[in-house]
């Protein structure tokens, strides 16, 4: 956010640098059941993002002291491949990945019937193979698919999406340039059925009205992303023979 630049992010016709309208999503493609070993898996292409998610569990939590006697613990790990970004990223978790893993774990736990599996862990691995802004919300969206594919009981399919502000305009789903040079970013995760908010972060500078507009935009977009999730899950079983 907020890097100085002469790039004009919104043109005279009100279009964005990649030609989108302010409330338009980047192209999204999802596929369920992409890995053999994992208990559940899914893949998403969202703009230039390429993210794979795998779920293992519920399995007996290890080490034992992390076990909860009355519920499963949800452990999401967010990680970026060394080649996923312009400058090669040193392998291994950095502080950002650790923080994202934590907030994603908490968001996912909000939809899982964790009380069904005491003393276990449900491990969610989110691997960013190519990053293009909005990886955490795309990661949550694809993790929801992997969880459903793993047969984990949930009260909703959680959806992530972000909105923000660039060149003074509230826009949906920031791309890389907008993320770098824009004025604000508000990533969210929504339970589409009940409209509850399971993840909310913000950085930048917005008025109250702008923030509201951004959140409204995200709410609307999550409904259409949710439809894509349902379609992706059902498609896995439609393609028989």
């Amino acid at each position, binding site marked *: 956010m907020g890097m100085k630049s002469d790039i004009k992010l919104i043109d005279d016709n009100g279009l964005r640098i990649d030609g989108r309208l302010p409330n338009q999503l980047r192209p999204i493609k999802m596929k369920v059941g992409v890995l053999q070993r994992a*208990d559940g898996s899914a893949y998403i292409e969202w703009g230039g993002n390429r993210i794979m998610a795998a779920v293992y569990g519920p399995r007996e939590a290890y080490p034992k002291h992390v076990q909860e006697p009355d519920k499963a613990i949800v452990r999401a790990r967010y990680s970026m491949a060394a080649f996923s970004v312009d400058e090669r990223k040193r392998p291994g978790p950095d502080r950002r990945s650790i923080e994202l893993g934590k907030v994603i774990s908490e968001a996912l736990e909000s939809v899982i019937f964790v009380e069904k599996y005491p003393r276990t862990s449900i491990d969610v691995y989110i691997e960013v193979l190519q990053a293009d802004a909005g990886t955490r919300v795309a990661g949550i969206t694809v993790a929801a698919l992997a969880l459903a594919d793993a*047969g984990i009981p949930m*009260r909703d399919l959680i959806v992530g999406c972000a909105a923000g502000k660039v060149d003074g305009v509230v826009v949906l789903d920031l791309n890389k340039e907008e993320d770098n040079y824009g004025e604000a970013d508000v990533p969210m995760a929504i*339970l*589409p059925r009940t409209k509850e908010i399971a993840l909310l972060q913000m950085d930048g500078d917005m008025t109250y009205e702008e923030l509201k507009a951004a959140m409204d935009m995200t709410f609307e977009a999550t409904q259409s992303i949710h439809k894509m999730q349902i379609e992706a899950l059902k498609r896995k079983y439609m393609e028989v023979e």
Partner: protein
Amino acid sequence: MDEKIGIRKIVVPGEEILENGKPGKGVFVENGKLYSSYLGILETRAGYVNVVPLSGCYIPKKGDKVIGKVIDVAPVNWVVDIRAPYYAPLHVNDVPWHVDFGYTARYLSIGDVILAKVSNVNELGQVWITLKEQGLRKLEGGHLIEISPSKVPRVIGKGGSMIQMLKDYTGCRIYVGQNGIIWVSGPPEGIVTVIKAIRMIENEAHTYGLTDRIKAFLEEERGEGNGNEE
């Protein structure tokens, strides 16, 4: 005959269920409305609406017969992987042999496969198994196949019809554990056919007319193999 191509209704977590009926398994109620907990198949039976998961781990129930693998040996018990979230201890008192303290490895060692029964489950998810019943034993020879536990009923078929058909066509001995582990023993060609048929059942469990398609497949295999079944 014409319903053969149909696919059973698939629902996703959080999807509202509009069918009438009492809440059964795999569903939850919120504000008087019924929703699915799983990615699964919608099924109405005896006035109840159920969602049968399309995947997921095995949750042990008392009385289930399961196939497990010994993964550790202790002085008075073995630890058995029954593919549930938790390992199951098998105590020396629950086997048909008299085992002296510390001599457990003489009877079952790591990697041995057993057909056991779930004797108890508590609310912490802890589970106990036993070998003390007619037919329960160590399994020797043969091969193991793994399927989703929710698909076990499809592999067994109505009144055991599907599994009987597999046995008849291939000459194999087959045992299906409730935990989705299947033991097959017999001629290698027969085992290969059983594996293929079970994969077909697994991938098409949510479709109608499955029995006929499996039968056609087995006929075809028999034709090619010329007397594979013994």
